[in-house]
């Protein structure tokens, strides 16, 4: 009997290597779990048949292009779209023998923090199905925490890997910008988008990152990443840990989140780390407005390709070409992409470009410099990942600004292209709290080492209490 709720990818590999289970049995165990729990959790938009082989199964967020497997990005405008080529990350997974369990739910075009913007209905949090799993990659996070996949890939623009990982009790990495190829990924905001792993443990997360990272001739923004060292041991002697005041004492942070993160910081000290305070005075206050100009501006450009001509949905309600474009977009896009296309187009329009988009790009420099200054004194920064634990479905859908605030603490480091790792650090009201480790560019190994030591010291049980 394979307990998919508890089995890590590392554990699965040991079972396969020792021939205690066959590849077919392992894949079937996950399909059984999907059959049992996905009707309630709705993590998957598409489930695959076993392609055969002895590799570890994996789930992919539905913005990741997969040859011969539908890829919708949670949007009606891509309903029925079946890519004719693999994204580089999908190809790398296949080359490593990983087998695709299916495509996971996401807010439409990865725009959202709860999966409630998915055109195919929301996913539910395995810890409490009345609550959201976070977003946009809530399907991947809920699948991993609900035992419907040993690990998964997500994508992160302003927090879409880190925040759902926090809300579902997973380890999730947003890699340094440029270390993972974006070739074949449905684009949202190209200067921010990064694909990354979601897993049950830091070691699984590090291993999956090593599978997907590296320069890709098909994506000229990629660079060579340092070789991944799988973390071991729990000595953090000499590690300099910075606690940015503004990201730890913000009024939006719930008391239960604050105290769980505080306890984890005490543990870091006990493990030998030197902890000190620092300040990122403009990154929090200006991170949100900066993000909500730059990301929609880039999205408004990227989403112009959905015109009903070459692929995807075309409105049947028009015999006239120009009307066809308009109706296709009106009927194909949901409210959130429309909102961002409007904001982005406005910010880029002649006469407003310098005041909005141009100014936001300068603020982006300010945010990057503030972080660089902090890394003169510290190796890693620690903050809560999400200001709150998982919120109830419908709780923030009426107010876009309340929904956007879910990413208050994850956005600043994303603007600077920095890697961030979510590590579960305890429970508040029976729901997972996530801690965010931020490092300088290309410091993934330091984040893994720190996260692994912390994970062992905390002893967080990643199986949702109601499913134990």
């Amino acid at each position, binding site marked *: 009997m394979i307990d998919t709720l508890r089995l890590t990818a590392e554990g699965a590999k040991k079972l396969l290597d020792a021939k205690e289970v066959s590849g077919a049995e392992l894949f079937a165990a996950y399909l059984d779990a999907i059959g049992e729990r996905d009707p309630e959790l709705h993590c998957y938009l598409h489930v695959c048949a076993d392609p055969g082989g002895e590799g570890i199964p994996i789930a992919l967020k539905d913005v990741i292009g997969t040859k011969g497997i539908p890829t919708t990005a949670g949007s009606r405008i891509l309903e029925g779209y079946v890519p004719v080529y693999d994204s580089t990350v999908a190809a790398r997974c296949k080359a490593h023998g990983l087998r695709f369990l299916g495509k996971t739910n996401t807010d439409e075009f990865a725009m959202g923090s709860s999966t409630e913007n998915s055109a195919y209905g929301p996913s539910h949090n395995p810890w409490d199905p009345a609550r959201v799993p976070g977003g946009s990659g809530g399907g991947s996070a809920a699948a991993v925490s609900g035992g419907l996949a040993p690990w998964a890939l997500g994508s992160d623009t302003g927090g879409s890997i880190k925040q759902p990982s926090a809300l579902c009790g997973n380890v999730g990495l947003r890699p340094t910008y440029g270390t993972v190829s974006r070739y074949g990924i449905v684009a949202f905001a190209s*200067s921010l988008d990064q694909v990354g792993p979601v897993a049950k443990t830091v070691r699984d997360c590090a291993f999956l990152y090593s599978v997907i990272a590296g320069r890709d001739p098909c994506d000229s923004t990629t660079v060579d990443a340092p070789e991944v060292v799988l973390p071991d041991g729990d000595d953090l002697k000499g590690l300099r840990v910075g606690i940015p005041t503004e990201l730890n004492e913000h009024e939006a942070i719930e008391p239960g989140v604050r105290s769980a993160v505080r306890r984890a910081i005490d543990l870091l000290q006990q493990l030998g780390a030197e902890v000190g305070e620092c300040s990122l005075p403009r990154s929090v206050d200006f991170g949100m407005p900066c993000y909500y100009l730059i990301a929609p501006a880039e999205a408004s450009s990227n989403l112009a390709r959905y015109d009903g001509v070459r692929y995807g949905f*075309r409105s049947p309600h028009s015999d006239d*070409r120009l009307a066809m474009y308009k109706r296709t977009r009106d009927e194909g896009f949901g409210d959130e992409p429309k909102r961002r296309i409007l904001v982005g187009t406005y910010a880029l329009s002649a006469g407003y470009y310098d005041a909005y988009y141009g100014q936001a790009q300068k603020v*982006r*420099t*300010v945010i990057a410099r503030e972080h660089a200054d902090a890394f003169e004194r510290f190796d890693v920064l620690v903050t809560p990942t999400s200001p709150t634990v998982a919120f109830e479905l419908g709780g923030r859908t009426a107010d876009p600004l309340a929904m956007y605030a879910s990413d208050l603490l994850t956005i600043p480091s994303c603007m600077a292209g920095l890697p961030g790792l979510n590590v579960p650090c305890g429970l508040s009201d029976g729901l997972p709290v996530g801690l965010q480790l931020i490092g300088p560019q290309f410091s993934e190994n330091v984040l893994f080492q720190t996260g692994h030591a912390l994970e062992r010291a905390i002893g967080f049980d990643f199986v949702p209490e109601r499913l134990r």
Partner: protein
Amino acid sequence: MAELDLADVPATSHPLDVVNVWGEDEPRPCLSVEDALANAPDRDGDFFRVPPGGAS
């Protein structure tokens, strides 16, 4: 953000300090016409087909 005086701050368009990336100009395999048209809502032979007319 408009309140900040950033006249001397350069803009960041991209988070990495990389400049031009060059590749060899060599022919490589690419999508076949059939693959390129596989997801087309409508086609006419080797072309994408769209409704006629409309304002330019």
